[in-house]
């Protein structure tokens, strides 16, 4: 080893070396003193141990004093110096050694916590293969420009955010969404930097590179969340401002009364609020880091602490408990052909952006043959209308949306109304008994039915179905097992809601809600004293997410608005993360309590021990450092939750 590498080695392991040397000197000095014939030599070695171990501490203490802060290092330096002055060399060396060892271990473990995010960032490859001037060229991933085509071979990590333009593959999106099951990607699909292309070769048109990628934004937000102070942290910080001067006053007071220097120095050391101030941040950083790796973005300690108190989870029905892929299940004509009913409904809904309207339009466009009465016309949700030969549906002459009720349109001199019972009642349109029976029967299966009215006469009905997510019943059960009430909110009518609620096994449901009603319902639950989490897609439900104590947005990976408005965002469209996120928050809240409790208990016991002379300076330092380490290790358990 040349001097250069020795120097480098020393720089890297300086703290460990200092601790080791100081420890060895301490042990040597202590043994000599034990043999007792080499008093001066023993004292000299112990002082040396204190100086080696304490040099860095004293240096920081000097800076602390210079910048008029009073930190633990100042207190430790004072204690060690004081012990030397009064001739307690053994105590001085012990205090310094134990503190240095404790700091070293604490720094090391905290580094592990801080590293949780590094792993995520390391997922992004440094280089990308781009197509420039018709040739493939390897460039730095940061330099890829928007719009450039990047080629990703099987087994490679995707270097940029972009849209697939060529090829088909399965992509493991775990770094972004936390979901390890590969997702199928083909032409037009979005892919994220840092995810892994597992099967085929892909060509991707870049939409973001370097720091402008979804993964980078997630990591940045996670860091901001970890840095934001939680209410408990700010409380403790405020408390510490008075506490530390208080400890010094106590120590001076103790000296004045007892004239015992060691006692007052011991008070200084054990009085440091170490475990108390370190506990909550470690718990929160660990929990947020763990959540990030599982594809759950938590906005910060404040939200996390509040989420720990959740006792009611409200789910939006469509797109949350269900897949959000509404498709026509059945078309019924009454004194009219089913095909005409669908056609007419499609014309009326053509300009609507409602998901029911989309389903009708889709069914009308890729209707393979005439739909027979009561026959199934399933519009396959994942068929792309642009790819299949779409039938053209004429435009309506005019068109009005009645929010939460339906649409009214005119076409070819006729008035078409497509809507629910409320809309028909409002317009005094009589619903024939056979139509009523049909509607009731479909609704009892959990399907949403609209009536089609031509010039004031009901000519048919269309039943639509939005499949339940397979995970929904299990997720509801899991929350119930954790003692959390579950509620479903929906715009559907009572009968549909009841049918779906029963299928999911949810505790309660609220039906026929307009978007603003959902907000009111959540407000109501909060007034009843519940701590309410609302789960939705984060776009349509943004107002209710904001009203809830904790707004949880699902499938947020590509949508910045959802991430912005929600308190927690699930990157994947995966309902199963909800119980995980809620129970992790609860575990975090407990963890913080445990840490604060442990810290307070330790300081109280030490204080009692010192005042009754059971606890010496060195023992006080040992217990103090042990309590700090215990608190960090306890907080780190959340990394493996």
């Amino acid at each position: 080893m040349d001097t250069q590498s020795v120097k480098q080695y020393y720089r890297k392991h300086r703290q460990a070396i200092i601790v080791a040397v100081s420890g060895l000197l301490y042990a040597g000095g202590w043994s000599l003193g034990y043999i007792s014939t080499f008093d001066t030599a023993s004292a000299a070695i112990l002082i040396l141990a204190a100086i080696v171990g304490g040099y860095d501490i004293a240096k920081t203490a000097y800076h602390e004093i210079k910048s008029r802060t009073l930190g633990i290092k100042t207190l430790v330096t004072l204690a060690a110096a004081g012990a030397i002055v009064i001739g307690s060399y053994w105590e001085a060396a012990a205090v310094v050694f134990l503190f240095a060892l404790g700091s070293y271990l604490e720094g090391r473990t905290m580094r592990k916590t801080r590293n949780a995010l590094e792993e995520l960032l390391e997922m992004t490859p440094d280089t990308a293969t781009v197509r420039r001037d018709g040739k493939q060229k390897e460039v730095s991933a940061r330099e890829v420009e928007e719009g450039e085509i990047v080629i990703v071979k099987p087994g490679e990590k995707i270097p940029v955010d972009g849209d697939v333009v060529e090829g088909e593959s399965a992509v493991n999106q775990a770094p972004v969404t936390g979901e390890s099951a590969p997702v199928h990607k083909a032409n037009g699909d979005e892919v994220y930097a840092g995810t892994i292309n597992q099967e085929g070769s892909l060509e991707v048109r870049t939409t973001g590179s370097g720091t402008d990628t979804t993964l980078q934004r997630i990591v940045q937000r996670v860091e901001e969340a970890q840095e934001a102070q939680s209410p408990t942290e700010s409380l403790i910080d405020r408390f510490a401002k008075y506490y530390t001067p208080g400890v010094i006053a106590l120590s001076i007071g103790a000296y004045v009364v007892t004239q015992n220097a060691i006692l007052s120095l011991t008070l200084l050391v054990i009085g440091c609020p170490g475990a108390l101030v370190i506990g909550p941040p470690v718990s929160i950083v660990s929990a947020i880091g763990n959540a990030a790796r599982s594809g759950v973005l938590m906005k910060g300690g404040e939200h996390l602490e509040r989420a720990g108190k959740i006792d009611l989870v409200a789910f939006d029905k469509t797109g949350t408990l269900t897949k959000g892929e509404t498709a026509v299940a059945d078309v019924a004509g009454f004194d009219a052909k089913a095909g005409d009913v669908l056609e007419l409904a499609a014309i009326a809904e053509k300009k609507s952006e409602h998901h029911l309207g989309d389903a009708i339009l889709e069914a009308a466009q890729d209707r393979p043959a005439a739909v027979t009465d009561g026959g199934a016309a399933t519009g396959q949700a994942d068929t792309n209308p642009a790819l299949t030969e779409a039938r053209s549906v004429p435009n309506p002459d005019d068109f009005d949306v009645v929010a939460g009720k339906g649409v009214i349109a005119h076409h070819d001199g006729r008035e078409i109304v497509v809507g629910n019972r409320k809309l028909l009642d409002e317009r005094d349109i009589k619903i024939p008994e056979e139509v009523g029976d049909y509607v009731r029967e479909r609704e009892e299966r959990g399907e949403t039915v609209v009536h089609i009215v031509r010039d004031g006469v009901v000519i048919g009905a269309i039943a639509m179905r939005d499949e339940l997510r397979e995970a929904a019943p299990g997720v509801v059960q899991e929350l119930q097992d954790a003692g959390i009430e579950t509620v479903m909110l929906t715009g559907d009518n009572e009968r549909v809601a009841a049918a779906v609620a029963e299928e999911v096994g949810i505790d309660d449901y609220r039906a026929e809600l307009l978007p603003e009603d959902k907000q009111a319902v959540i407000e109501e639950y909060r007034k009843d004293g519940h701590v309410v989490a609302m789960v939705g897609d984060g776009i349509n439900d943004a107002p209710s997410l904001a009203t809830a104590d904790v707004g949880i947005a699902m499938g947020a990976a590509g949508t910045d608005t959802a991430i912005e408005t929600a308190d927690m965002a699930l990157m994947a469209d995966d309902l199963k993360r909800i119980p995980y996120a809620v129970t992790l928050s609860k575990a975090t809240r407990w963890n913080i309590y445990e840490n604060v409790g442990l810290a307070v208990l330790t300081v109280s016991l030490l204080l009692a021990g010192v005042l009754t002379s059971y606890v010496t300076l060195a023992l006080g330092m040992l217990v103090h450092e042990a309590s700090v380490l215990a608190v960090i290790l306890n907080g780190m358990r959340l990394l493996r939750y």
Partner: protein
Amino acid sequence: MSETTQLRVMDFDCPSCASTVERALANQDGVENVEVHYATGRVEIEYDDNVADPATFEQTIENQGYTPQPA
């Protein structure tokens, strides 16, 4: 011109250590704003590049007994 740079300190062992580093950096000439986060070890420094030399930031952190590394 105002510039911003980031560093990372992974070996903070207590929240008050982070505050001490924050003060030391803030006391340097040309430094306009400093944020040091104990939780993540992130150090963000906003400075006037006509006055402050970013190379001295790392030295300052080292003087306080911590190891800076690039963010």
